[in-house]
């Protein structure tokens, strides 16, 4: 819960500017942008996610490094399980591509 999950914004809902489609290691889920009001990310940006909310914008390199850290900590599977669970596991696209 303490560790953040890195993801890339692949789309933002036209109805709800706080609702972004985010890809994490091939899994796409909706993530909430409501806690980045002051510095709204856009499609293509990388973010750190906590419990379904984007908490900070980061660089692509930092995102890759963070995923690597999760992997080395043995937490990458748990992180992906969390991401798959967003939206009560009903997910938009189980796998991208």
């Amino acid at each position, binding site marked *: *819960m*303490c*560790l*953040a999950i890195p993801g890339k914004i692949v789309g933002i809902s036209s109805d709800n500017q706080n609702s972004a489609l985010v890809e994490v290691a091939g899994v796409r889920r909706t993530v*909430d942008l*409501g*806690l*980045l*009001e*002051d510095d709204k990310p856009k499609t293509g940006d990388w973010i*750190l996610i*906590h*419990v*379904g*909310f984007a*908490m*900070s914008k*980061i*660089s692509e390199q*930092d995102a890759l*490094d*963070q995923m*690597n*850290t999760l*992997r*080395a*900590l*043995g937490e990458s599977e748990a992180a992906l399980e*969390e*991401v798959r*669970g*967003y*939206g*009560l596991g009903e997910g938009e696209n189980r796998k991208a591509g």
Partner: protein
Amino acid sequence: MRFVDEFREPELITKTADEIRRLADPKRHYRLMEVCGGHTHAIYRFGLKDILPDNIELIHGPGCPVCVLPMGRIDDGLSIAHDSPVIFTAFGDMMRVPGTQGSPLEHKARGMDVRIVYSPTDALKLARKSPEKHVMFFAIGFETTAPSTALTLMRAKAEGLRNFSVFSNHVTIIPAIRAILDSPDMRLDAFIGPGHVSTVIGCRPYEWIAKDAGKPIVVSGFEPLDMLQAIVMILRQLNAGEARVENQYKRVVPWEGNRSALKAMGEVFQLRPYFEWRGMGFISQSALRLRDGYAEWDSEQRFHIPGVRVTDPKAAQCGEVLKGVLQPHQCKLFGRECTPEHPVGALMVSSEGSCAAYFNYEHRKTASMSLVSPTA
């Protein structure tokens, strides 16, 4: 040290470790506390202690929200779902944490409607889909998760969704650090500051630790190199007789924190006069309750809460371990009565707890990964 090869710039890790050995004055003993449970996990997982000189001791702090939650609060939360058509929702971390009558998962096996959610907004979504039921979200966490709970509550209020409430166990990190520093048996020299909590609160709230308590604090990332660099920054300060707040994790943590997140927390939460921390006792102004404007969405105001208090067994020495007076294995119960499978004390409960981390990585000694020995 383990996993070195999996990170960028492994040679820089070696150089930084050399710098630590150069800076560590052999006549001194350095006691550094990492506040965050994520750091505790990383320190054991990566075997950082293997490359630190013997006179640098890492003390594991209170930053594991599951560990510091008193058992009585779990009983209180579950009591709400005992009666009436209430769905108990919580993060997965909470599901195996024992209350006096068993964990949420065990209650589920006995028929309670218990569901894992990965985001508070999913509890809200469940409430929208289940108008005949009441959905209670059992909220835990420090400032990393509290803003998400806050924004979820703002949405529930805006929608007028009345079959949703939050049982708030959110705690704040600064009062816990203060309690540790105020403790008469405190023997710390400096702090490794939490990474992701600081993305929300920024670095300013730590300034009193340097100015008033005279202890350096360096906010750090979670990679081995991050933590080693933070230790270098701390040693430089200690050797120069300085105490400042420094930010090693600038690439993620802005000095001012996340204003939107702080605003949401301020809108929804207020400080409780006091709150009990498992292993540490009551700490004043250390936890968040819902403001009166959110009374309708506050489980504690909507339901009768028994207010259960369960004291940890006297033999458990969690408080001493939390303050760095004892190392995990020096507790009388460690590895005997108290194990990750059957936790007696708070710190054995979650993988981020210092006793569980010590048990899993040191006690079991399963280290079979790529080992890099120190270049002493």
